[in-house]
């Protein structure tokens, strides 16, 4: 057993290894040490949890992809890679694939998602998204009229996002092999010289903002599948976030970190933030903007909206002195009218997300284990 695995040795902020702690505290420390280990890929077969964005996904990425591909641009495992050119200019490069079922849902279609997913990942790196590629995997027998409609959605989404689709690829697979169609996109944008977003620049006291109501997309798609027998007026929030990011960065130039809480929701990105910053993220449940219909559907389904996907929202960590300006800038933008301050960065407990419940207690918000949701992006 290495020193780091000894129960008492894993201190918080350099705790004395000989310190006498309660039995519960010792167990908690042992668990935290265990959790910080790189997750191991133990499964012999892929299952849906590997695609859910939680711990199993992390184990797959670390245990299979990273092992084979590891390099300086990939290792940070953010929304995309930062590539520095010989001129010193930095490019943000990201890729995304869309396999949503159904192909069309209230508020958008797979075409909108394919463009927004990629441009938002590029935007979260502080870059201005400019160019996008699109690869189509089509099923034998897929109606061309439906393809035209989806492609028109992509063209509309690209125009709204200010990007051009500059290259592509097409493959046709046998019927039943691709749920109709799958779309894979990649995007590139230039990061302005003065922008440096990084979880490691996050400091205790920084504030956590979300740009609007959470869980809309995931719940809209789940209900659109029609299997749950619940009807509600909920639309996907799918939208390009480049403009919102630029407004935010102008108002709060010391913004530390941005993320779009897609698969795995706000809870998952906050956990990644806590882990990468080695700090605590404290959220306030009462301040989370959630539509009543989304909250109601989640309550019925036994799902926590914190884990439900969004396709047009961002979570930002900003310097405390710029929090007012950041919130005002978000609210002034049409995509950020429901923006809210939802939390604060603290020292303790490091690497964890804690939520203060509306009822007056609190709990840990962990990474998702398993896959509680249907495929939604």
């Amino acid at each position, binding site marked *: 057993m290495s020193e780091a695995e000894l129960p008492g040795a894993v201190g918080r902020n350099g705790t004395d290894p000989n310190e006498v702690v*309660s*039995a*519960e*505290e010792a*167990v*908690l420390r*042992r*668990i935290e040490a*265990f959790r910080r280990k790189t*997750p191991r890929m*133990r*499964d012999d*077969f*892929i*299952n*849906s949890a590997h695609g859910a964005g939680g*711990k*199993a996904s992390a*184990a797959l990425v670390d245990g299979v992809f990273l092992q084979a591909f590891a390099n300086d641009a990939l290792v940070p495992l953010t929304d995309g890679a930062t590539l520095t050119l010989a001129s010193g200019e930095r490019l943000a490069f990201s890729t995304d694939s869309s396999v949503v079922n159904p192909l069309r849902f209230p508020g958008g279609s797979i075409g909108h998602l394919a463009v927004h997913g990629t441009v938002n990942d590029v935007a979260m790196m502080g870059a201005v998204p400019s160019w996008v590629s699109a690869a189509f995997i089509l099923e034998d027998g897929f109606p061309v009229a439906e393809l035209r409609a989806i492609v028109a959605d992509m063209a509309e989404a690209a125009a709204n996002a200010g990007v051009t689709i500059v290259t592509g690829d097409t493959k046709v697979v046998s019927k039943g092999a691709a749920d109709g169609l799958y779309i894979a996109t990649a995007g590139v944008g230039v990061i302005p010289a003065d922008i440096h977003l990084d979880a490691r620049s996050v400091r205790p006291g920084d*504030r956590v*903002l979300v740009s609007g109501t959470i869980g809309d997309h995931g719940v809209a798609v789940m209900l659109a599948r029609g*299997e*749950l027998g619940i009807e509600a007026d909920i639309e996907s929030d799918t939208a390009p976030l480049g403009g919102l990011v630029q407004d935010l960065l102008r108002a709060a130039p010391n913004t530390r970190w941005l993320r779009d809480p897609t698969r795995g929701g706000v809870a998952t990105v906050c956990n990644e933030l806590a882990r990468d910053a080695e700090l*605590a993220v*404290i*959220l*306030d449940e009462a*301040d989370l903007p959630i539509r*009543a219909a989304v*909250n*109601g559907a989640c*309550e019925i*389904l*036994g799902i926590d909206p914190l884990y439900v996907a969004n396709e047009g929202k961002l979570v930002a960590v900003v310097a*405390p002195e710029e*929090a*007012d300006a*950041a*919130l005002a800038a978000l609210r002034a933008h049409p995509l950020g009218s429901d923006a809210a*301050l*939802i*939390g*604060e960065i*603290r020292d*303790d*407990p490091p690497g*964890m997300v*804690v939520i*203060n*419940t*509306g*009822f*007056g*207690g*609190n*709990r*840990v918000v*962990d990474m998702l*284990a*398993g896959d509680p949701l249907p495929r939604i992006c």
Partner: protein
Amino acid sequence: MKFVDEYRDPAAARRAVEEITAISAGEHRKFMEVCGGHTHTIYKHGIENVLPANIELVHGPGCPVCVIPMGRVDDAIALAEEPGVIFTSFGDMMRVPGSNGNLLEAKSRGADVRMVYSPLDALRIAMANPERQVVFFAIGFETTAPSTAVTLIKARAAGVTNFSVFSNHVTIVPPLKAILESPDLRLDGFIGPGHVSTVIGNRPYRFVPAQYGKPLVTSGFEPLDILQGIVMLLRQLRDGRCEVENQYTRAVRDEGNVRALEVLAEVFELRPHFEWRGLGFISHSGLKLSPAFADWDAELRYSVPGIRVADPKACQCGEVLKGVIKPWECKVFGTACTPETPIGTCMVSSEGACAAYYNYGRFTREAAAQARIPVRSA
């Protein structure tokens, strides 16, 4: 949210906690919440951390997923791997480990396993796929058994023959007795199960005060319900009373739901004994399909292995289910046994004490108090 927020009001919660602090007067009190739904609420809303330290909550056996023994999961996987079968299950059961993997893994290997939210969904799948056999993995206490019963009555009425049920329904009173007989447990009272009681009523619990001298208060599932249940238990102890009381009056009647009980009696009969995870065999604690519904009984339609599989040695689910140890006192808690790689059932279900503690409560009272310092406004 309308109709829910009022049961989560922080000001009312503070008043209830003040009352609990005042009545209990520092005396150590240990109450068991029987139902997994309560355990989930307690952790999800952080109730333990707002209670005074002298009030200890012990998590009971009322989590339907947690009590399913490994052998029954193996049987389920064998059914799922029968050629031509569509095997339907609640999502929670998909990740429960048998002796050779879980249903999700069987699905990855090619079995047609589908998640449903209700047995009626399983029946609908059967009616839409008349050329396939559809088996429903029925689990749960008297709470979910009536919906299985109604589904079977509908299947019979509609003449659906390609549908069958693998019944793992159990009843709440026998394990409660087993816990009360357990010598290593000292409890001051029970927070009685809410949903089960909407069906069976409050009368079946009368033996708890009568024979064992412990008060029981049937409680609802919102945070304030549970605090109110604790207040009512403490008042009984203070006043020297010992009885069954009902906090959940908006849903539970003394006589229960007569129609649901009739349906249960029509469709099910008691097994002589049924194995409970960690608790062993308990007589008259499980439900099987009655002879009138034998044609829809998956255990008769297919040959299931039916082999009893011992729990993994390291796993202490039994002690956790009986409330003898706290989840974190289990030897494998949080290291070998985690929600991603559960060894025991208590780590699988969101109602399981171990999963609830691991996911929501994994920090000390002091850390919780620190975190509750309000987030500063922008």
